[in-house]
């Protein structure tokens, strides 16, 4: 019987050695160690032995059982390693294939820029205000110190709806609407569509502006300059030069226009900046006392600044878009670039 066991052992170890897969090893385990396995079969016959032989044969059988188990385990590790290695080799993919996606969409470039700009001002402490696009002449002109016979109305090329009602020509009327709603301090920015009777390569009858208004007790022209410089540096980059030139707007005094160094030639002079090195991008000034009078603000106590600029122009400069008409043409080949 001991002999039988030894034979079984040799046989098993040979088989284990030759096993090449974990499946075969499992079969071997069942074949030799399972409930109906060869070792078990032998042990079942233990009862036919003399009582004094039984312990010896039993312990040899257990020994062999252990040896087989250990060998299976060892071989299992080796085979498993090989198998995983094979699997890994089989699972090589071309990682340069494009990922599975329906693709992201594209926010319109105007709104991308609008978000960036509002973000800068909101971070500074401004809040967003909005107002109607069909507006009364009172808010669009009169309350902004631009009475009916004012020459400044000429530059606005207004769309008229009915007596006293126009399409707003700028976002400034929201200034008055905001000031009517609250006493100072006021700190708002106003993004929105505006309209002028103008349609050619560089003008669109509808375009977008951003207005800013700050009113408090100690707001100065220096604050205006500082705020706008901060904005330009955030939006166009720290290396952008800024200059303020005196200008005229009926609703601010003193008034200024702001230029930035040309984003194309960096101030050296090119076609985009008409060889001046500067790009005019913004109008601003200290709120005119007459505007405060309309708002019911005390001009002796409060001071404010206001500014306004074209969002489309900012987008065009930032992304080198050559014509404003591209912005409103809804050509997917354009929209999907941004």
């Amino acid at each position, binding site marked *: 019987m001991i002999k039988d066991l030894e034979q079984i052992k040799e046989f098993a170890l040979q088989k284990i050695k030759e096993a090449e897969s974990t499946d075969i090893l499992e079969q071997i385990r069942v074949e030799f160690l399972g409930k109906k396995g060869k070792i078990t079969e032998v042990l079942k016959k233990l009862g036919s032995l003399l009582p004094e032989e039984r312990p010896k044969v039993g312990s040899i059988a257990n020994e062999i059982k252990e040896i087989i188990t250990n060998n299976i385990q060892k071989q299992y590790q080796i085979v498993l390693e090989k198998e995983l290695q094979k699997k890994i080799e089989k699972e090589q993919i071309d990682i340069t*294939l*494009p990922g*599975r996606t329906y*693709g*992201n*969409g594209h*926010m*319109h470039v*105007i*709104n991308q820029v609008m*978000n960036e700009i509002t973000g800068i001002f909101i971070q*500074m*402490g401004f*809040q967003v*205000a*909005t107002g109607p*696009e*069909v507006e*009364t002449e009172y808010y669009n002109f009169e309350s902004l110190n631009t009475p009916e*016979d004012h*020459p*400044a109305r000429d*530059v606005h090329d207004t*769309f008229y*709806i*009915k007596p006293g*009602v126009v*399409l707003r020509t700028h976002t400034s009327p929201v200034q008055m609407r905001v000031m009517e*709603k609250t*006493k*100072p301090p*006021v*700190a708002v920015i106003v*993004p929105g*569509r505006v309209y002028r009777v103008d*349609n050619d390569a560089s003008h669109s*009858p*509808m375009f977008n502006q951003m207005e800013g208004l700050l009113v*408090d007790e100690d707001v*100065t*022209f*220096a*604050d205006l*300059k*500082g*705020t706008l410089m901060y904005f330009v540096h955030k939006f166009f980059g720290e290396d952008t030069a800024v200059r*303020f*030139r*005196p200008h*005229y707007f009926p609703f601010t*005094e*003193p008034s*200024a226009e702001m230029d930035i160094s040309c984003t194309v030639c960096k101030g050296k002079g090119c076609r985009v900046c008409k060889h001046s090195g500067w790009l005019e991008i913004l109008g601003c000034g*200290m709120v005119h*006392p007459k505007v405060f009078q309309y708002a019911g603000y005390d001009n002796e106590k409060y*001071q404010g600044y206001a500014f306004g600029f074209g969002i489309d122009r900012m987008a065009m400069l930032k992304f080198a878009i050559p014509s404003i008409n591209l*912005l*409103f043409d*809804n*050509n997917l080949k354009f929209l999907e670039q941004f």
Partner: protein
Amino acid sequence: MKISLNWLKEYCNFSVSVNELAERMTMLGLEIESIEEPGKEIENVFVGKILDIQPHPQADKLVVCKTDIGKGEPLQIICGAKNMKVGDKVPTAIDGAILPGGFRITRRKMRGIESFGMMCSGAELKVEEDSEGLLILHPDAPLGEDIKKVLGLDDVIFEIEITPNRGDWASYIGLARELSAYYDIPITLPQIKFSEIEKTASSISSVTIDCPDFCPRYAGRVIQNVKIAPSPDWLARKLISAGQRPINNIVDITNFVLLETGHPLHAFDFDKLNENRIVVRLAKEGEQIRTLDGELRTLNTSQMVIADAIKPQALAGIMGGADSEVDDNTVNVFLESAYFDPVSIRRTARFHNLLTEAAQHFQRGADPEMVTWAIDRATSLIQELAGGKVLKGILDEYPKKIQRKNVKLRYERTKKRIGIEIDKDFQRTIILKLGFSVKEENEKEVDFIVPSWRHDVSLEEDLIEEIARFYGYDKIPNTLPKIRQSGAVFDTAFKKVNDIRTLLVHKGLTECYSWTFSNPEIMQQLNFPENYLNMVVLQNPLSKNLSTMRTSIIPDLLTTAQKNHLEDTISIFEIGPVFLPTEQNLLPDEPQKLGILLSGSANPRLWCYNDRKQFDFFDLKGIVEDILNELYIPYRVEKSDFPLFHPGQSMKITNQNEELGIVGKLNPKIAHELEINENTYISELNLNKILCVTPKKKIYKTISEFPSTSRDLAILVDRSLPVSEIFSSLKSVGEGMLQKIELFDVYTGEQVPHDKKSVALGFTFCSNEKTLTDNEIDSVMKEIISTLQKKFNAHIR
């Protein structure tokens, strides 16, 4: 406005470079549009005199000239022009000369005969648009002189944009005044020199002002026996430098004085004035005048005319009349210099759409105290250039004296407004240099008298601007303000709308941005319901198809789909206002709407997608529901009958009977008409209404510790039964144990009768208190089955 540097220097002789001057003007508020140096490129072109012209032996169209350029031997020059004769002086480019555009002139043979230069036309020197033949110079032009000097090309022309508040800048003297104040150089005004005869103007003429509010001041002079002739070269060149065309000496002088002083003048043919007198009055209703541009204009009683005893002879301050025009036969002249009310000029000029140079000057406010200086300056020039006898005295009617204003400056307010301490003396000196004078003053404040030409200054802030300008905006520091809020909130939708925009972009949609104009025809063509045709109408639209404001975004989306019809996939949206007129309000409602359009392939052509699925209704419904769910908005959907949509694939979204939006397939008939993909799906949501709905509350629900169990069920029901009814019928079943129902299949086809559909549902059961037993779940399933059988006659499959 075009400004010649040479001319400007006649009034204020500053010696700074062109760049420094341009920079300075810019920083004073004079916007430089362009700087041109007309003669910059020209080299070696001189005044030559033609001594001889002979035919070219080898060419019919050429001649051989001998031209003297004042030095050396006369040059032999071959020329193709015909307009010159022996003795003419012409611009002559010698060997090595350079013309505008960089053209180099060299000695060369033309048909066998050598040519040692070129005689030039006006166009070749860029002093005329186009030329026929050579530019024949004035006989007095000095032989051999550099042509740039003779033609005034050694000049710099600034194109300056004048802001509407500074009418006083729109003249040479006005600009000189500003620069003289900055550079602290005195201003030089031209000498006025003429002689008057004994006879007085008032003895043969008179001025009457009937409307002093419209015309506070009117002055006239009579000059007899003038000789109408072309203007001398210097005068003509000056007008040309300003972009004007010389006419005759008298008219040119009035235009010249306008450029010089900013004060418009007018010359009448004195003999064409009935009774030789002037009446400034308002027009009679329906009265007519033929203006210098040949138009017959009908006037009304708010428009001011310069009339004689009988009829209007000029549209006051805007344009003269044709009947009293100065022409070649004019002998006696009545010269007008006046101050008109800016508003009246502006209204009349706009009425007739006649914004002439004169009107532009008067509407910005002329200088009432310049009236007599300007008329005398013109008189002096007329006598010099056209001869004539000046009758004694100015007919100067000034019924409504324009008082000079006074404005107070408190020195400390400058710092308060500008943000930097500026020395008191500096402040005071600047204002004085600008022509103001002191009425009263003390340590803290000055009361300044405003000069007659500064209509823009009436407040302390205006003075502070002057100080800031001269101090230099660039020297004012840049500081960051403390920014405070009052607590008032002005917009609640901006961020939420932007979140929706971002959500849609992340879902793969691309945002459009359209003009908000529309027109009623397109709305009718697209079969929109009647209420969409109630539109905001523009009085002055750019064109008929942009004549109203839109009431829906859908037409814009369809236009975009048409434009991009070659694309495989169109999945776009737009957010923006629509404009809805209301009965009760002056202004329309402007709700923000969201329009979405899906058309074509739902997935890209990519290696990992086997088929190109086309978009269907549920792609769009899913997007819309995701938006509403993201916002926690409770809503219901119902079938709808929006006429633009496919009648079988059209729904509306409501909350408490308020319609929030619509979703549907574009009606195939309309798709065919528009020639766009038939599989086009459209939604329009009213974001204002959606953002007004109270969102569902977000509250924590207990997560059960006990395992859940699932059971599936497939039933056959009528094909027309809305699945939503199955769901709502099971709402109260199961005493809280039924946690979730999934709809995992809907099938119609061969396997089921044609009027039935198979609906497969997955139920998940769970309790927070215990592990549910099979018996408990079985009894709920029984309840579900009997409910479905009873309500929908459902067959269990």
